[in-house]
């Protein structure tokens, strides 16, 4: 359920809100110790900004000047709890100042704006400039869990979010600037659909694991 692919540096999703921030600090520490010039990008939501480890992780990343980008996807909802109610400040980025960090707010539904902010933060981190805090404002489409009917939300808010689809906006921009043609777009979308279709077919046709596999991978092999 919580996916990781260590081979490409995706160190895992987390079932505990804010569970990854302190781990990201350790990755930043490790990057510095191993001198690899990498950056650790840590995603979390508005709900995570109210948990203790958020505070500890930011503080430690700053005092140790670690190459960690803390990226908050603020969609205004932690399950059914609105951010305006749960958070003492309207922008999570305002908290960054409490750690001596500039807090950057971007439109999270604008791919190019997000790209520019993360790129700047990554370059600064690689140059030894320490951590960054980016708050990306987004609108949540689906409910918190599969099957959540979202009765607690205003339908107009959901509709507005769908109207500001980041992918549709990027497509329009690239077409308008003649960076892509409609043929390119069709090919990209066809290839993406094919990749997903293949993956779904693979998943659906694969056998279920043997039940006894539940006992594997608890400890290192041979230990």
């Amino acid at each position, binding site marked *: 359920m*919580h996916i*990781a*692919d*260590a*081979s490409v540096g995706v*160190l*895992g999703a*987390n*079932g*505990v809100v804010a*569970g990854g*921030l*302190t*781990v*990201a*600090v*350790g*990755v*930043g*520490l*490790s*990057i510095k*110790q*191993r001198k690899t010039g990498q950056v*650790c990008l840590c995603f979390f939501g508005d709900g995570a900004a109210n948990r*203790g*480890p958020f505070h*500890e*992780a930011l*503080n*430690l990343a700053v*005092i140790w000047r670690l190459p960690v980008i803390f990226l908050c996807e603020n969609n205004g909802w932690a399950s059914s709890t609105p951010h305006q109610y749960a958070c003492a400040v309207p922008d999570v980025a305002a908290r960054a100042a409490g750690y001596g960090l500039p807090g950057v707010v971007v439109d999270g539904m604008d791919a190019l704006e997000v790209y520019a902010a993360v790129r700047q933060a990554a370059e600064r981190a690689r140059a030894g400039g320490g951590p960054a805090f980016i708050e990306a404002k987004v609108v949540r489409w689906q409910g918190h869990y599969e099957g959540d009917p979202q009765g607690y939300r205003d339908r107009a808010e959901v509709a507005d979010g769908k109207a500001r689809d980041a992918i549709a906006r990027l497509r329009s921009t690239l077409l308008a600037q003649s960076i892509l043609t409609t043929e390119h777009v069709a090919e990209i979308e066809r290839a993406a659909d094919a990749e997903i279709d293949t993956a779904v077919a693979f998943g659906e046709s694969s056998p279920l694991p043997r039940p006894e596999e539940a006992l*594997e*991978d*608890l*400890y*290192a*092999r041979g*230990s």
Partner: protein
Amino acid sequence: MRKLTMAEALREALVEEMSRDPRVFLIGEDLRAGVPFGVTKGLADQFGEDRVLDTPISEAAIIGASLGAAITGMRPVADMHFADFVTCAMDEVVNQIAKVRYMFGGQVDAPLVLRMPTGNVKGAAAHHSQSLEAWFTHTPGLRVVFPSTPADAKGLLKTCIRSLDPVLFFEHKRLYKMTGEVPEEEVLIPLGKAGVKREGSDVTVVGTGWMVHQALEAADRLALEGVEVEVVDPRCLAPFDKATVFGSVSKRNRVVVVEEAVKTGAFGAQIAAWLAEELFDALDAPIQRVAAKDVPMPFSPPMEGFVIPGVDDVIAAVRRVL
């Protein structure tokens, strides 16, 4: 053979492992000053401040960061200052560290050690005296180690630092100043191997930490009455050496399990359950347990003495099984 205190033996283990492997580093509070227990004193001078990291009081970050470093190729040895403070980072230990290998299908190792100064030292009271091993033996994915002598501490800490699995390494605070023989040559004690601390024909006493020494003192006193007590120290709670413990109980047929943790749900209850389930026919008497009373640790000396188990409790329990 030379004698070292447990603190000195642990320091030697850290020096040897840090010298051998540049990935090993220390992280925690007051490590450069080496207070209050002295284990890490001098290590920042020897290895540099880059490898002996002093932190703010941020247990969740200390432990979470240890995990992040461990899954990306480093070998952190974190110091919890007092085992009681691991409570400030239970998500990091139980949900993150213990489960990272399992959840991600073996993609990463988590080679980290959490050093846990544990147990009663007189007058430290409720927030600085706990014995919490059972919380972690109850968490699949963790190793739980609890040596009772300087030699065992050194040999086990070296092994734990080299392990690819996460370890909670409990160090009883009363044992930091206790001296014992420690071999000059390098010894690596494997995980899951108990130590028979005293052989005796009449009864097995299984004990951990400080209570091993209470059991040995009880055994000396009982020997004067002609009762010979065998004292077995599991040294590792997870993995647990059933073969050695069962082997002893099979021969002595009477067993007392002693520990300093509060009695209900302590790890000794699990040892007793294993014995009752798997070795029932070998028992000539019901299993007896010695542990602390089920209350937080009091400060007042007579109250504290009433709560924690001692030599007399071990002797009384042995008499009950004879």
